[in-house]
């Protein structure tokens, strides 16, 4: 039987506010346990929450970026359950009227086409603390530093049918939230987490199969593997004549498998009700407009501009628009050197390789966009050969100089286009290699092409890469054949 998977995602993005969603405690990562938990985070008797306006603003920005309607009024609800890392015994969240209504995102598929995925809604809520099960001699420690950290939970419609589509959507959301600066999107530190709802059904069937929710997957790679594994597991169960029990499962990246956590029957009754400590938030349309006007160019818009206005391929545009710092770097370089294709080739090539070697992000690149454009300008005006340009890049990266021109000067990398000087080098090389010259002249014309390479190599080496390759080829051909 042909099977079809149906996938929906719930993505938790930690918002990059300075303080928590309902208290003034810092949200910085990695502090001493409980050093960032004040009386509000500890849920002392008598404490009250005050909503962080920055979190509201960030959520609205996200809503605007996914083409969603922002409601005039949004409310908070309590989700009640007991757990030691949930100090109040309830999580303050949004159930009835979330801050971000229905929206959508277009994802790019591998075949170059795009697919529209509807976002059901996104809502604000507070994170829980952490239970620490090690180092407490059979007891459990509770760290409440994370308790009250603002989260934006983004819930998609179940409209993805492969793990790759799910990853594409996750990447798309990742680039939007980082473009907007509302989250650092760091999955390893838990700033972005993903739950996937997966079900399968016979291809063509309308009715959805029973679904399983895979909790807390913390990397793009694991999302793809966990979903693929879960699809396979469900198909195997069904093909063996079994039934899929609706349950929550946990992905184990070490074993690459999902395991049952709890079944639907054990599900809590969360007894949601409106939080009486927080009044409904009225959202002023002028304020929304103000945020809208101030939105940065988003990944999708950038990608379009790169293809339509700058003439890049869909692939190149996709790579360069995937992160805002990378796109900003590219835009600066293009503005200075005026050649988008050249900038794209060099950023995706030489720069990306160097970043990779050093294991650093674009924001930590040792060569500034200005310096980088300086190299490309000299490449375009034939001052530099390709090889010499790479040497200039390496020297700038190693901080051997301030500008491309300075390095070119200091290292004598200026490309030699003076035919007299090139002729002199050619003569010298030919004189040193008389045997090869004889061989060349004796060879059949169709075999000569390969042999030219030897002479060019020697000449470029002797000129330290500065000889203009075009001039070398022309002059060399004349002399050998002459």
């Amino acid at each position, binding site marked *: 039987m042909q099977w079809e998977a149906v996938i929906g995602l719930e993505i938790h993005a930690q918002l990059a506010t300075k303080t928590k969603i309902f208290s003034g405690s810092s949200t910085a990562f990695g502090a001493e346990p409980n050093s960032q938990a004040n009386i509000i985070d500890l849920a002392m008797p*008598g404490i*009250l929450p005050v*909503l962080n306006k920055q979190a509201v603003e960030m959520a609205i920005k996200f809503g605007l970026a996914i083409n969603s309607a922002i409601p005039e009024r949004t409310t908070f609800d309590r989700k009640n359950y007991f757990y030691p890392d949930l100090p109040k*015994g309830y999580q303050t969240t949004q159930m009835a009227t979330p801050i971000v209504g229905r929206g959508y995102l277009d994802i790019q598929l591998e075949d170059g086409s795009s697919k529209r995925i509807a976002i059901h809604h996104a809502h604000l809520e507070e994170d829980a603390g952490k239970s620490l099960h090690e180092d407490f001699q059979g007891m459990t420690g509770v760290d409440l530093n994370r308790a009250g950290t603002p989260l934006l939970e983004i819930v998609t419609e179940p409209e993805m049918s492969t793990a790759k589509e799910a990853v594409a959507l996750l990447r798309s959301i990742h680039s939007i939230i980082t473009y907007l600066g509302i989250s650092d999107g760091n999955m390893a530190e838990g700033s972005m987490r993903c739950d996937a709802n997966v079900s399968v059904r016979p291809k063509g069937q309308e009715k959805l199969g029973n679904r399983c929710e895979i909790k807390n997957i913390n990397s793009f790679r694991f999302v793809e593997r966990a979903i693929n594994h879960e699809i396979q597991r469900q198909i195997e169960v069904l093909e063996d004549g079994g039934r899929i029990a609706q349950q929550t499962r946990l992905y184990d990246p070490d074993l690459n498998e999902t395991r049952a956590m709890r079944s639907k029957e054990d599900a809590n009754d969360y007894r949601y009700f409106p939080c009486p*400590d*927080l009044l409904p938030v009225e959202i002023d349309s002028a304020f929304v407009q103000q945020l809208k006007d101030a939105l940065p160019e988003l990944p999708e818009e950038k990608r379009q501009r790169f293809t339509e206005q700058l003439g890049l391929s869909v692939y190149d545009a996709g790579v360069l628009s995937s992160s805002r710092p990378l796109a900003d770097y590219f835009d600066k370089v293009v503005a200075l050197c005026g050649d988008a294709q050249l900038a794209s080739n060099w950023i995706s090539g030489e720069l990306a390789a160097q970043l990779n070697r050093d294991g650093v992000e674009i924001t930590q690149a040792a060569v500034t966009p200005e310096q980088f454009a300086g190299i490309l300008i000299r490449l375009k005006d034939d001052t530099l050969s390709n090889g010499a340009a790479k040497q200039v890049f390496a020297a700038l990266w190693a901080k051997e100089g301030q500008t491309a021109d300075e390095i070119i000067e200091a290292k004598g990398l200026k490309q030699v286009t003076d035919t007299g000087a090139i002729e002199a080098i050619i003569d010298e090389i030919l004189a040193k290699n008389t045997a090869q010259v004889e061989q060349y002249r004796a060879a059949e014309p169709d075999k000569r092409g390969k042999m030219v390479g030897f002479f060019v190599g020697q000449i470029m080496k002797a000129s330290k890469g500065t000889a203009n390759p075009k001039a070398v080829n022309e002059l060399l051909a004349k002399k050998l054949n002459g």
Partner: protein
Amino acid sequence: MLDLSLTQMAQGLAERKFSSVELTQAFLQRIQIVNPQLNAFITITESQALDAAKAADSQLEKGTATPLTGIPIAHKDLFCTEGVKTSCGSKMLDNFIAPYDAAIVTNLAEAGAVSLGKTNLDEFAMGSSNESSFYGAVKNPWDTQAVAGGSSGGSAAAVAARLVPAATGSDTGGSIRQPAAFCGITGLKPTYGRVSRWGMVAYASSMDQAGPMARSAEDCALMLQHMAGFDARDSTSIEQAVPDYLSQLGNSIQGMTFGLPKEYFAEDLNPQMAERIQAAIKELEKLGAKVKAISLPLTRMAIPAYYVITPAEASSNLSRFDGVRYGYRCEDPKDLEDLYKRSRSEAFGHEVKRRILIGTYALSEGFYDAYYNKAQQIRRLLAEDFQKAFQQVDLIVAPTTPNPAFDLGSKITDPIQMYLEDIYTLGVNLAGLPAISVPAGQINNRPVGLQLIGNHFGESQLLNAAHQFQQVTDHHLQKPALV
């Protein structure tokens, strides 16, 4: 000295007739003698009080005193007080020392008031008789066989018995007004949002409101002056200027219209109570007030609505008492579930458990619409009824309770009967309105309370009308015949 009003005390302090230390010692001595009969205090903070009194005296000397500087008060024991036990009348918090001060505790301390300690209350303010306290019932100073009322029974009894001239209370369904009525004192429940809830341990957040309890409207006005105000830490606090309550007290009530809701004078009302209330209304008429019959048709529905919404909120608010971070923890829990179950079972009393169960049930999947949503609908309609009434009248006048204080132990086994006693006070909380209870005589030595209800932010009018009433009556000057 113990019978002086707050204004007279302030005058005495200013004129150096006595010092704050002397005044404080006089009340502390009175507490030593009388409190054992009444059980009004859970904690007496003698040394802190004397330190505060000394500081007040130096302010009085320097001339930097305010009208409350050096005046002894007490706080209901659900307002957090830094470094002092804040028990909420519960075994759950018997070991809890609050790490911070409630907003009103700070406000009153900054105004120079000297706190003598923390008063008894129904456990987590859940009760109408003060019998649900882990520390035992408070006894009514007028008749120690009678309840003091609840939940602010300790504050009411302490003020009535001259253990303090004024105290703080909180009112979620009548918890200031009903004990004030039972103990023959004056108690004001302000508009929801008028006084910050920061540091007041929550029972039902959408109705809890702190207010003053004292012997007269004038004393309540002075207390409220220093309790009220916007607080950015409480999102439900309302940003509106606090009027000068004292300066409005002398206004004439000539021409003011008082509405008499017929539902508050129906068959629930004890006939002797009705007589006292009618006599009080006559006094208001003598002052030039007009009286008009009105109707609040949903009055009886307030009881079920209230006893769905408040337990629902309470069931959530009290979840934090889980034995994990503070408060009571059972011995040797064998696992997490055992820790939760036994800590909560062993430390919460019957009434608290009852309300947590009712509230949990009302919020459960499948029951939510039938209970919680329905109750919220009633709440909205009830608030609309009050608004319609305020289009015709300035204030509403009614009894505070259907009966005077009942005997200790007489209703504790019948919660429904106990809940019905709240019929005249609950509606005000559901609608977020201010109301005041003032003494209006006694029945067999048990006091009767007259209730005035105002529109939102009508505290000035309420205090003014109550003060005018107290200028021509002496019910508030009567005192129980205690030692």
